[in-house]
């Protein structure tokens, strides 16, 4: 199966019914994407497929053939959202953080707090109590250089 992974063409040989999550972590060596619940409840495994956040634990890799997949590694390590999560203490144990950030990337311009909560309704955090996460995301969307989530993700 061929797809674009974090901007580069890639080919994987895993079984077509393998979970995208396992292919990313085990065959592609990208362990930034975490497994939480394995049943679509927690959002820790969130990645973008063609710009839309999805649970990589619920997707057969066969279904990403020909698509564009972005994982947390695709942001590099100096993305403003990553830095804001650190500065606002939006991360503690860190398991939910990559999924939170990937889900936040799909937000439209000028989101309200309610928009942020809705966008992150599929992501659970058991440490922070969410306020710091919402604060980090709202500050990111207020930054002048954020023009679109798509450009930020690539």
């Amino acid at each position, binding site marked *: 199966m061929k797809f674009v992974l974090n901007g580069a063409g890639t080919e994987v040989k895993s*079984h*077509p*019914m*393998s*979970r995208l999550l396992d292919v990313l972590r085990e065959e592609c060596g990208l362990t930034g994407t975490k497994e939480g619940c*394995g*049943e*679509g*409840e927690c*959002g820790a495994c*969130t990645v973008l497929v063609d710009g*839309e*956040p*999805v*649970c990589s*634990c*619920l*997707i*057969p890799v*066969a*279904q990403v053939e020909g698509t564009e997949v972005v994982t947390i590694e695709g942001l590099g390590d100096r993305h403003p959202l990553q830095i804001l999560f650190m500065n606002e203490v939006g991360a503690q144990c860190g398991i939910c953080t990559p999924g939170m950030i990937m*889900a936040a990337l*799909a937000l439209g311009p000028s989101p309200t707090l309610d928009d942020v909560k*809705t*966008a*992150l*309704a*599929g*992501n*659970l955090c058991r440490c922070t109590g969410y306020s710091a996460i919402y604060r980090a995301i709202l500050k990111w969307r207020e930054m002048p250089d954020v023009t679109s989530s798509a450009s930020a993700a690539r």
Partner: protein
Amino acid sequence: MAGNAGRHVVRERSAMRTAISGLEVRSAASLGEALAILRDDERTPIAGATDLYVALNFGTLKPRQFLDIWSVSELRDISMKGTTLVIGALATYTSLIRSTLVGTHVPMLVEASRQVGGAQIQNRGTLGGNVANASPAGDSLPVLAAVDAVVVLRSADSERRIPITKFYTGYRATVMRPNELIVAIEIPPVEGKQWFRKVGTRAAQAISKIVVAGVRARTPRIAFGSVAPTVVRAPETESALAEGATIDEAALVLSREIAPIDDLRSTAEYRTRVATNLLRRFWIETG
């Protein structure tokens, strides 16, 4: 398949994750190809896979041969055929939420779609998947039952239209034949105010304890999820209201008409109480 519903029902504590190596999948690029494959070969169709992987991960899924129809783009359309709204089986919850046609004709389907899982599930879960998965807790199903939706089934050589109220024959059982696919859901014009409410443990990501969809027409139409082995209409309650019963009388009829069970998400007593409360609220808010 799709829908974020009923997943804990199949969970067994002792089960092991299903070995992926024992599975086999074929992908279809068009509806014609998918139907030809199903004519010759018994396979379980998969679309958004959101319920499928839950069962695989907990080792409780029986099928081993799958037909991936996610790429069959002709099943994603949402359009009008005369006055009937036709929703392709592969329309995702996200596309239902974004569709002006759905928002105009069946706003409560948009409401129900917003309450399915989070954005990640809404981006993959499909309406046809929710129907096919046949969970009594499927969030879209009471909406479809209350608007008298029709399920369009197609095989390589025939097409059938089954009213959603006749589609389910028992717990997770449907009239579908192995060689058939759900291709669309048809919704006739809906007259009267629409009302939807889902009661779960929390607002997002919850499997419902009870779901209600109602249409306030001359004969009101009311459907419930999670109170029976399948989605159900409440015909006796509907007739009582149509014949001018007070809401207290109708609530009594409803409490005798439904027979929910105790399970890990709720109790029969709670469900009956909440069902009657929701009936009252439906009546007040649409009056």
